[in-house]
């Protein structure tokens, strides 16, 4: 992409200009933490504020990250030039090396290179995918959908028990045919497999997607595209605990660390189908609950304060959890019978439109 190439070159030229003027080269990096994330009530999205941190070359505390930023940027430029893609992990290994006459490495862990890539995204206003960088593949989908990926037509309903593994970059695939009434996003793979085996998606005319934990960017973008391009409602199905609920909020509003691309990844119309603490009483799950740990409670208390959890229904659920000190996993439903989830719980919730906002 010409635009990306140009932006990378401008970044280098800005630094070079400082060098030529004998100044301490610096780059501006928008801050990606809660203090600079704004919840937009209207668009229902988390967006980035305008706080910027300066990263200087001639500052002992910044120097290494400055060097790392330049190394990542230079490699990205090569990827553009050669028009090849690589993974985050691969990028780390390509750049990792020991500096001459020392014991110091350019990068010691992937945890160092990953945030620099996000720095570049935010700084240049381009997506990681546009930089030709892919994350690990995580998340699967099944449903009556036909797509075209790298020239191949794929029917997502005819891929056997495993479904289709969602690649990290779904920008370039086209949605050919979609025959569904809604999308059900499931936190856990086990529940996804149960629903798939029970042919839930055929009976209910829906698309099943599992995020396998916190959603990666590929599945998030796919959900967003399906929902936006075909006007499909999105229902999210997670454990009844603070982590499950946060997975939902990331799908709906975006995340704090990726607030800069919320509009491409968020599904503001997504609704929460369950589980809730209230479900425990309504569906008689009391015997299958788990006691909360201190971290669950701590996380719930933090979430009480987030603007995007201020809705009374959510405040009530969070407070219930803190008060009763219990949580429930999706598997709790199997306690009521192995097909309770597919035959009772989900159909009743959908029929009654029993959702949380």
């Amino acid at each position, binding site marked *: 992409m010409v635009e990306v190439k140009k932006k990378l070159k401008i970044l280098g030229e800005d630094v070079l200009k400082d060098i030529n003027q004998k100044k301490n080269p610096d780059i501006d990096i928008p801050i990606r933490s809660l203090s600079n994330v704004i919840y937009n009530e209207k668009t229902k999205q988390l967006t980035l504020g305008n706080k910027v941190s300066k990263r200087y070359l001639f500052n002992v505390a910044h120097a290494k990250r400055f060097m790392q930023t*330049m190394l990542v*940027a230079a490699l990205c430029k090569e990827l553009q030039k050669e028009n090849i893609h690589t993974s985050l992990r691969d990028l780390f290994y390509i750049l990792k090396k020991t500096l001459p006459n020392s014991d110091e490495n350019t990068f010691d862990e992937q945890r160092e290179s990953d945030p620099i890539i996000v720095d570049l995204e935010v700084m240049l206003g381009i997506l990681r995918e546009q930089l030709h960088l892919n994350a690990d593949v995580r998340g699967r989908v099944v449903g009556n959908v036909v797509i075209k990926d790298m020239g191949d037509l794929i029917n997502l309903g005819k891929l056997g028990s495993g479904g289709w593994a969602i690649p990290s970059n779904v920008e370039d695939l086209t949605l050919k045919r979609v025959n569904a009434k809604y999308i059900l996003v499931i936190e856990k793979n086990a529940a996804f497999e149960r629903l798939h085996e029970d042919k839930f998606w055929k009976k209910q005319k829906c698309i099943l997607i599992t995020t396998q934990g916190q959603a990666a960017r590929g599945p998030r973008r796919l959900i967003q595209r399906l929902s936006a391009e075909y006007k499909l409602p999105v229902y999210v199905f997670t454990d009844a605990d603070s982590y499950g609920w946060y997975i939902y909020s990331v799908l709906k509003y975006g995340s704090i660390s990726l607030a800069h691309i919320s509009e491409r990844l968020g599904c503001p119309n997504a609704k929460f189908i369950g589980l809730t603490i209230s479900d425990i009483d309504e569906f008689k799950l009391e015997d299958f609950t788990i006691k909360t740990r201190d971290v669950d409670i701590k996380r719930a208390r933090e979430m009480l304060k987030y603007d995007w959890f201020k809705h009374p229904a959510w405040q009530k659920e969070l407070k219930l959890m803190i008060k009763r000190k219990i949580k429930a996993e999706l598997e709790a439903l199997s306690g009521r019978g192995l097909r309770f989830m597919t035959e009772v719980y989900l159909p009743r919730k959908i029929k009654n439109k029993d959702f949380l906002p």
Partner: protein
Amino acid sequence: MVEKPGKTAQEMARDHREVAVSEFFEKNRHLLGYDNPTKALLTVIKELVDNSLDACEETRILPRVWIEIKPDGADRFRVMVKDNGPGMTDKQIPLALGKLLYGSKFFKLRQSRGTQGIGASGTILYSQLTTGKPTTIIASTGNGKTSYYEIMIDVKKNDPEIVSHQFIEDGKIWHGMKVEMTIEGRYVESRKSVPEYIKQVAIANPYANITFDGPNGRVEFPRTANELPPLPKEIKPHPYGVELGILRRMLKSSKSRTVASFLMNDFSRVGGGSAKEICKLADIDSKISPQRLEITDTEKLFKAMQKTKLIRPPTDCLSPLGEDLLIKGLKKEFKAEFFASVTRPPAVYRGNPFQIEVAVAYGGELPQEGSIKVLRITNRVPLLYQEGDCAITKSIITTDWRRYGLSQSGRSIPVGPAVIIVHLASVWVPYISESKQAVASYPVIIKEIKLALQGIGRNLQRHVSGKRKAEMQKKRKEIFDRYLPEVAKAVGKLTDKKPEPILNKLKGILKNYAKVSEDGRGKEKTENSG
């Protein structure tokens, strides 16, 4: 049941008799530092070396001391200490060494190593107690005559018992004294040992030349200074510093004819007016003979002496080592990179003048790990035992060393590559016991030590932070030496330019920025770009 009748008062009185000092100490030898074989060997060496150094200094002779310890059967050692001091006249020898509490130092106050007159004779007593053998003393004053004595102590009478006495007439002209004895003991080379003691003596007395010939070979401690510190002046005791028992003895042995003249002649800082005031306060006749004072009057006199307002004692009687000698002493034994010392002005505790000096050695080849080494010295004598009870240790652990660049957890000896030497000079060092191993914790003494420690602490802190700064500079340069080529290459790739000119320019900027960005710890600065 018929009880056996007890002793009558008459019978009891027959049993009572005077206990000679020497007999008392025979039974209480731990009080003198002879509680175990290891400590006993150290005490013998310490007492004899103290005497040699005192004698040399008093006659302004640069000390040369030979020490020899050789095994003599199981748990026994033949010990010899020889010096180049003034020696002793033939008549004086048996009295000076064969009688406890005999000495010239007792009623005069002067900063010296020994004070009680039990040191050397105590060693002879210990030798005969453990091996039954007499001690050999050879001495000459430089007149061509050499005295040879073999001496034991009559414990009951506290009198010398001369086993053998003769003159060696080999025509040799020399001065000095040699004491040789066999004792029971145990030789170690650990922390609290004879070699450690001698090493510390050499540090505290850098003008002395010491040879130590021990069971494991010979060690030389050459002198590093050729001048003796000035001879301490002798002063009379100050009324505030005298104890009741000593006052009684002074009264008995005084040559003054009245109590008033006794006070004026035998004490410092007492004039006619003060003497009268003391007598009036004590309600005793100032014209009465000191020998005839009743015991109750003595007590009244003692109390009155404490209550009367008097000028502080003179302090010019003290002879500190001086900052120069202290550092020379440390340099002799420790290869450190930094030395500093502080000498406090003289101060007074309970009528006794004293002075604190402190020096530190830091870094270099001193071990980085573990607690710092603390040398406790009183009147140039190292103390090895009872460190926990000593005012010097207490002062060190209650000083905050973290602010001076050493690490320290709570109230403990700090950790770091440092040696601290604390010297207390006084006409009367307040030891907590007769074995003279720990200084009593008078608040004013602790205060003076801490002030001195804080003084060297500030010097140390300057050195350590300067060193850290230099290390930071070096580290910073190394960091950029590593990073700049990488940055130059990357910027070159981004801009399609050659990296070499970029690197050269970056190196130019680095020179200008060598002093900048001291805020090196910080986060990236936050700004609002609006």
